[in-house]
């Protein structure tokens, strides 16, 4: 028994046997998306952030700051300015929830179950992202509905409008990988939230989301020029207001999207695989 030989027959199970095809992968992702959706159905409170945040934020900004920023009586013009910018912000706030979600999942035994099953480990993460994109689209829809109530006019074409939503969505999805990485790296969901806020606040407010950047000091204005949220806000604003695609901000946003995804996705997936 103490000899170092193994007598149990090793089956003809080459590395190929466990390989999971594309259809298998899609089926697994589907089952896991369903899991996340059923979770929301069973616990609708988890949707509150998505449902209420756009409403509260838009009311606050339009009525508290709108007059000061755009001049009293000019709230309607401010709505036109603010709503596209807030589309950019929604993505970021929803993305933050992915980090806490992943972190919580890991503190439960169910992740052990997934990791001992014959599924690609990345499918757990991809399913999460799919569901969060749905949540993000819902938040965007509520935001736009609120905007329309407050007098927002979609001045661009349908295509331009769709472009603005698409741009915010892909950028938000890229951000999710950052938060997943964060969620896998820190110990508690609270820590995820705390660290996320540190990053979120300067990015959100040091941008053109809420106010034009021309009144900011030079160094801050410089920061807003590279801040992806600023660029996304500018691009979405131009598209919704029918000024055509602003090539520069849209490109910078897409560039950020690609870079963020390319760097953080492999890191997150690797971390997820090796996490014990």
């Amino acid at each position, binding site marked *: 028994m103490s000899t170092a030989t193994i007598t*149990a027959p*090793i089956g003809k199970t080459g*590395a190929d*046997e466990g390989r999971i095809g594309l259809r298998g992968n899609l089926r697994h992702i589907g*089952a896991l998306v369903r899991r996340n959706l059923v979770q929301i159905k069973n616990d609708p409170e988890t949707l509150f952030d998505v449902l209420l945040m756009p409403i509260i934020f838009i009311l606050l900004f339009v009525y508290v700051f709108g007059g000061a920023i755009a001049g009293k009586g000019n709230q309607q013009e401010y709505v036109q300015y603010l709503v596209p910018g807030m589309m950019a912000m929604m993505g970021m706030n929803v993305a933050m929830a992915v980090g806490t979600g992943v972190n919580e999942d890991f503190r439960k035994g169910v992740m052990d179950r997934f990791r001992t*099953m*014959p599924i690609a480990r990345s499918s757990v993460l991809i399913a999460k992202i799919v569901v969060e994109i749905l949540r993000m689209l819902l938040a965007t829809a509520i935001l736009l509905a609120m905007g329309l109530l407050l007098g927002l006019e979609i001045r661009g074409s349908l295509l331009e409008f769709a472009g603005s939503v698409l741009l915010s969505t892909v950028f938000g999805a890229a951000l999710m990988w950052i938060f997943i990485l964060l969620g896998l790296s820190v110990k508690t969901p609270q820590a995820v939230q705390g660290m996320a806020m540190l990053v979120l606040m300067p990015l959100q407010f040091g941008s053109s989301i809420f106010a034009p950047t021309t009144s900011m000091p030079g160094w801050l204005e410089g920061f807003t020029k590279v801040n992806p949220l600023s660029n996304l806000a500018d691009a979405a604003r131009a598209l919704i207001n029918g000024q055509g695609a602003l090539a520069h901000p849209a490109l910078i946003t897409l560039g950020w999207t690609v870079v963020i995804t390319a760097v953080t996705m492999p890191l997150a997936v690797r971390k997820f695989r090796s996490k014990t």
Partner: protein
Amino acid sequence: MTRQTISTRGGNAVEVRGLVKHFGAVKAVDGVDLDVREGTVLGVLGPNGAGKTTLVRCLSTLLVPDAGRAVVAGCDVVRQPRALRRRIGLTGQYASVDEKLSGWENLYMIGRLLDLPRKDARTRADEMLERFSLTEAARRPAGKYSGGMRRRLDLAASMIGRPAVLFLDEPTTGLDPRTRNEVWDEVQRMVRDGATVLLTTQYMEEAEQLADELTVVDRGRVIAEGRVDELKAKVGGRTLQIRPTGAGELDRMVGAIAQAGLDGITGATADHDGGVVNVPIVSDEQLTAVVGLLGARGFALAGISTHLPSLDEVFLAITGQKTSGAGTPESASDTHDEQAAHHAEVGV
């Protein structure tokens, strides 16, 4: 799906040689060898922090061992993890089900993840709920289940894919005696159906109920192994516990037993707190002799029972030492270290 068979009858479903897993300075698993014959139950008995959970996590591909080899259901744990995952089921110490989903949704999801067609996944979920007496609770979130129900759901989830090898990590820890018996019944049924089981436990009684063979581990090493009855004989069998009607009789009873000099009976002791006399015995004849003696001497008995030795007593008999686990301050820090090491690993 049919149960996957892995070799000719009587082969080993699990073979482990020289397995090592360290977390920093903590040698959680430190050169373990063990075999589980196909269709049998191996009990891995040991105190908290002995490395049982780490061992199971290595064998179920959740951890990569530092050294040594392990083959489970014909697959090497390091080189063929994906193929291996098709052949195993794991029920951990902490329920590995999604607490926000209902019992049915949990089982359906697992069926789908195991590539069952929708219809089959539905039927199988119903079937397993029925079998584990969870049909009534099928639509309730698993988070609202009692401890026993959750553990049963966990077992059901592990059985959906009809695994060749099932790992049960302390399946009854934290359960009350009634639910514990339910879980035991289910495990016995799985074995009758042909599963090979590796189960870890802290309780000799559980090992005796479920296991064919035992491996006793401490501090990451195997310190004894063999059939359950062999180990029991080594440890010295059972403890006969006698409760007299009057608590004042305890010392007189001990005296009477010692004086009678019955064959092989030594070391009767009075447990004043428990109100019982404990007599170590190795055979049914000895039990009869002691009870007969007390009857003949006119003692009024309120109850008698026999108990298997506790883990502490097993360790005492095997190693001549107390367990490194369960209760001593040193062991508490041991366990803590192992967990801390797990966390450290997570943080890297």
